[in-house]
């Protein structure tokens, strides 16, 4: 499905990012696995993936709050001299605070990580894609960007900004062969949702037709589809993966 492709994935350390990394390797893609920090467990995992599926898995470390580090990360990718076919922007942060309680500092930091840095990183990576006139960008947004969610003003607004950017990027980059889509996961079993208060979890799940928490691999499957040539005519879309919420 992804054999011969090279993908850049951010937020690979855990959750949806880790599941996407694993699935892409299984499907034959080489991966630049981006995350903020390393760990012995993570490095070992990358080596195992590489060996098991006979693909290249190259770790790239940078902090999305550090513009110079982002650029250095891109240079490492560029210097590997591999064509980049896919970019998956998964890394993100969440600060839970009600509208009247969210500070400007929290708002700015959330936007810095969830929006500004991702736009910068995408500018760099899509410039690499322009050389080959082909590529797919997948931005991970959230249903809270579409529906709102109590206590998540900063998070949902930043994820909403990514959706708007996705649509504009799709229009600008489409003629150059680059597709840009966003996905909007619902409640997925990750560390980010593990801290959701029981009441909030119940409220969300009660709106779900499938009535359960989603799994990271289920989101990864959708990302793999958008990364593959099976979705060659799909761009500028926001696809919900939420078990039927809303």
């Amino acid at each position, binding site marked *: 499905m992804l054999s011969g492709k090279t993908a850049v994935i951010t937020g690979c350390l855990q959750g949806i990012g880790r599941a996407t990394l694993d699935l892409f390797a299984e499907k034959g893609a080489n991966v630049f696995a981006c995350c903020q920090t390393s760990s012995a467990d993570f490095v070992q995992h990358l080596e195992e993936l590489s060996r098991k599926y006979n693909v290249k898995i190259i770790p790239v470390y940078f902090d999305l709050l550090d513009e110079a580090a982002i650029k250095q990360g891109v240079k490492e990718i560029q210097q590997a001299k591999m064509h980049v076919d896919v970019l998956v922007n998964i890394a993100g942060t969440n600060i839970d605070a009600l509208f009247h309680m969210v500070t400007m500092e929290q708002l700015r930091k959330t936007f810095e990580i969830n929006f500004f840095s991702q736009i910068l990183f995408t500018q760099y990576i899509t*410039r690499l894609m322009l050389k080959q006139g082909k590529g797919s960008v997948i931005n991970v947004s959230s249903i809270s960007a579409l529906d709102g969610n109590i206590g998540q003003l900063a998070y949902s607004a930043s994820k909403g900004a990514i959706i708007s950017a996705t649509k504009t990027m799709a229009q600008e980059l489409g003629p150059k062969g680059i597709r840009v889509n966003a996905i909007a996961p619902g409640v997925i079993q990750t560390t980010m949702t593990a801290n959701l208060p029981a009441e909030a979890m119940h409220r969300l799940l009660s709106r779900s037709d499938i009535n359960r928490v989603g799994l990271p691999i289920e989101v990864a499957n959708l990302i793999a589809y958008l990364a593959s040539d099976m979705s060659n005519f799909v761009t500028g879309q926001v696809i919900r993966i939420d078990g039927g919420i809303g």
Partner: protein
Amino acid sequence: MTNLEKYNSVFITTFEIDGNALGEDLVYQSIPQWDSVGHMALMAGLEETFDIMMDTDDIIDFSGYEKGKEILVKYDVMI
């Protein structure tokens, strides 16, 4: 190949122009090929040729053939 030859080659290849067209009159949108699409192709070509990653501000400031030489100095590329 000198840096100037490499620099010229990127322009000639990207825009499919003759070497005689290179000079101070060659600026953004002075020829049909150097539109916004051509501009990004030019930037990609220069980045690949000189193994650099240009800042967005510099991509915007890259207004012409001569101006580009000044900008590349920032990336330790002396033309």
